[in-house]
């Protein structure tokens, strides 16, 4: 019942040397199975229209995206309300295969960082070489003490996904890391 659904920190935002905003509810489906298998490609293309992403890449088609998580895991991003039906569809397409589909939309908090210095803010939290990231790249890493995935979702935009329970912690982290005056001027 998505009209009763609220995200981890509705409307939270902070304007520092980059702008941090909670992105609201996003549809996310965890798909486990051999990413290289032909049947996986068939199912993913049929369900999302996206190609199978290369290692640490994200493929997009319309309002869907598929992110590479590991050799046996993909993360499908879609509209929040569409996730249950899409998960069911994937389940049908993959029936009989060794694959697992799980709707994880509610388990996550999502933040958008906008600004040319997004990498500079995140470099304070994540052991990631942001100088080598290009649009469409994704990294599974950590931000300070919690797990995070970072997707370069636009020319001056990064999307960070973490567990819902640490949404507030993450928002504090991101706000502090982008506090005006603390620009490290590393990448930008």
């Amino acid at each position, binding site marked *: 019942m998505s009209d009763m659904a609220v995200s981890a920190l509705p409307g939270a935002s902070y304007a520092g040397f980059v702008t941090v905003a909670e992105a609201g509810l996003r549809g996310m489906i965890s798909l486990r199975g051999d990413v290289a298998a032909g049947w996986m490609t068939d199912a993913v293309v049929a369900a999302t229209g996206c190609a199978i992403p290369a290692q640490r890449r994200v493929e997009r088609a319309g309002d869907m995206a598929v992110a590479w998580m590991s050799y046996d895991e993909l993360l499908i991003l879609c509209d929040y309300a569409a996730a249950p039906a899409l998960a069911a569809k994937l389940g049908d397409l993959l029936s009989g295969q060794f694959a697992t589909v799980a709707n994880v939309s509610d388990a996550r908090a999502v933040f958008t960082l906008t600004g040319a210095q997004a990498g500079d803010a995140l470099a304070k939290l994540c052991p990631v070489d942001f100088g080598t990231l290009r649009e469409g790249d994704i990294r599974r890493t950590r931000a300070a003490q919690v797990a995070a995935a970072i997707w370069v979702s636009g020319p001056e935009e990064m999307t960070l996904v973490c567990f*819902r329970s640490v949404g507030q912690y993450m928002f504090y982290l991101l706000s502090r890391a982008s506090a005006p005056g603390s620009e490290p001027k590393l990448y930008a």
Partner: protein
Amino acid sequence: MSHRLKTGGRLIDRSRDVKFTFNGKHMKGFAGETLAASLLANGQTLLGRSFKYHRPRGIVASGAEEPNALVGLGKGDRYEPNQRVTTTEVFDGLTCETQNHWPSLDFDLLAVNSLVPQFLTAGFYYKTFLRPRAFWKHVYEPVIRKSAGLGKAPSPDARDPDSYEQIYAFCDVLIIGGGIAGLQAALSAAETGARVALWEQTAHWGGRAPVDGVTIDGQDADAWVAATIAKLEAMDNVHLRLRCMGAGVHDHGYVLGYERVSDHAPGTDAPRHRLWRMRAGQIVTATGAIERPLSFAGNDLPGVMLASAVRDYVVNYAVSPGQSVVVVTNNDDAYRTAIALRQAGVGVPAVVDARAEANGPLVAEARAAGITVLTGKGIRKVKGGKKVTGVEICRIDSKGTAFTEVFDCDAVAMSGGWSPVVHLWSHCGGKLVWDDTHHFFRPDASRPPLGADGAGFVRACGSADGEMGAVLMGAHEAGLAAAKATGASGTPPAPATDQVPDMAPMDAVWMMPRNAEYDLRMKMWLDYQNDVKVSDVQLAAREGYQSVEHTKRYTTLGMATDQGKLSNINGLAILSDALGQPIPATGTTTFRPPYTPISIGAIAGGATGPVFQPLRRTPLYDWHAENGADWEPVGQWRRPYTYIRAGEDRHKAVNREVTNARTNIGLLDASTLGKILVSGPDAGRFMDMLYTNMMSTLKPGKCRYGLMCNENGFLMDDGVVARLSDDAFLVHTTSGGADHVHGWMEDWLQCEWWDWKVHTVNLTEQFAQIAVVGPKARQLLERLGGMDVSRDALKFMEWSEGRLGGFDARVFRISFSGELSFEIAVPASQGRAFWDRLLAEGADLGVMPYGTEALHILRAEKGFIMIGDETDGTVIPQDLNLNWAISKKKDDFLGKRGMEREAMVHPDRWKLVGLETLDGSVLPHGALAVTGGKTANKQAETEGRVTSTYYSPTLKRGIAMGLVRHGPNRMGEVLEFAGPNDARIKARIVDPVLYDKEGAKQDV
């Protein structure tokens, strides 16, 4: 007296005054200089008292190597002890205070210590204060603590208001040190296309070369430095950082950099310090060299300084340490100081040169400038009390019994040669080699620190490599080789050419004069910071200390905040001489990070206040917070222990919640429970290995309680498993155990059973889970409507899925309380709305949330165990009478063999029982049952312990569970438990299930 020169000063801005206070006295400096320069410009040469003898001490050096001039900087919340004035940039409003004197800097009563130096020689701690025994604690230690030490710790009430942060960075080649060698290495590396980072610890590029008058490609060094920086700044692949010290080199090219972002400009929004966590492919150390003092009597008086430091102050800051400066040396380099002083109009009565001859170009220049040069001589002793008033000269090869000349002067510039800064080279195992020409240890290029591939990953260049002449070609080669080692292929242009004068060889002079008698030797300081003298090291050698590491600890040579940057080589030369062996045979002590002390703030980084630790919040967190939650940490979660209402204490609130759950409806936020999806064709087989009981036979739609053990058979986790489909299970774990159990599953699947077709997905946070507990629970769910939750449609230990009150719900009919109970999982985003609906719909039914303490009491009344209470990592399921949950049909499961070991099947193991105090009181948590006898160790013999203990509002008395030897066979026996103050509390052994043993209430 030290003073400001009328002209010059390449780093100061005379148009910008800076006001500061020193011991409350107002002083003025210029922007761009260090606090040391400002203090000297104000005539302040006395800056502290020494560690043991309370000798007057002043500035010796001009950089990170300074041992003496440490002050307490700032006030109140910003007070920081032991700050080096030579590395502190002066700023408006700076306040500082001197340390380690009593009652005052000028008049220090504890200087009497220096009248009785025989009490404070090497190892005095170990020899002097042994008897009488009681005196150590009550007399010696308090006196020594008062007398010895550096700065005071900040007040325990002080709270650092500044911010600190860390940052991760990556590069191909990291160059540490921004002198001309570092700049050339960076340029050559960058011109190959490699990603380059360059750190310089001071606020200025160029290092010593501009001070020393080096010319590069025919222009002065400053011009070349400016042009090179401009070139580097224009390159996209170069990252430059000033005020950033390479603190430590670690394995895999991991380097910590300590950036003092705003120490020089407090009050800005910038963080104070930033710790760089750099991952570099290759490292080039261009960290320069540090000049060594000479060991002559009185070499610690304020006014005796390193020759290089003297010219730093003159050239960089237009400050002279005195009106009349005697230079004493064993090498040509110090003549630069004599020349610089003379050019600045400062008197130089003589250069005292220990060498028999002095004929290099710099010597000639000094002589041509009219400076008197004495050869074959040394300083016999420095005259003066709190400052230098003159020097007595003697023949270098004499015993120093008589002087040959006397000079009046108010400062002495000394040079005992140079030592390359090999610290960063050495941190990760780079070896050193002794250089007989320059008398120093230098990096041995054939034995660098080795990376994971077995190849070296650190190179040294410039004077850090022991190169005391032209450095740019070597630096170019180091930068280029480092870049090539990372795969760069570009070809840089040829480096610039630096022109330096020829230098005649130096003479090793470790003691001045060479055959000095004892009374002179005991006034020759090796380690200023720790008050270690030549005589102390010689005494240690006589007492049998041979290892340099042992001698360091015995004498304290090279300890404390400067870690012997000045004293190291001089000390081990004296030790080698005393041991009659060459210096390389003695070797050095170990160089450990950090290069100089770094702030605790930088180490903590941003992990303070709300981000000190992650605090996990369930979807209902805000409701709890708004409704009186008394929080309890459970792992990183915060859970309500209870909800305190007006007029209640914790105890009353808990009792209310328990009683309400037993009579009406209780609601529990169980969202923290671990929820792990296990799916795949081999899921059943995998579940049978994880759990002690059989899970593969569970039918879809059903739930089963299960136990998980580690390989040793110890109980690790428990919970209810729901079979979702033929090839999928939902595993519920304890709140604190979810991540561990998930990791445990993946460990087995990835490392041992990699060919099993099983996936796990941690869905813990996907769902808000709410337990609806109590006799009216079904009534409430029926009001919501949408799912049949009747007794027969949803039997005990079944689950079903549907729309409950419009919510996407999975309803488990399970009970951890003994009451009719449903646990309902809804998507986390709908959790708060669902909770609000339950509260609204159930208001007239008496619905009321309860916290974790009520949860504990409810389960304890039912005799249910709790992981972490009844288990502690040493308890097996059999101890808890859970044999019924251990399958005998399965060939194997994790922990099976562990449980079969002798100690695990021993009949004397303590087993679970209920405990009932005879007086109805609540047993203390963890209380031990004592037999009255003694063990072999004469300790009280015990036969059991309390694992859970509560006041039961249902039974209106204390209830407890415990592990007792032969417990289940001793029903009705009365045990004695040890309480506080030797109290003995009597409790009877009873059945642990105290409430509704038949289970009628949960099955309605």
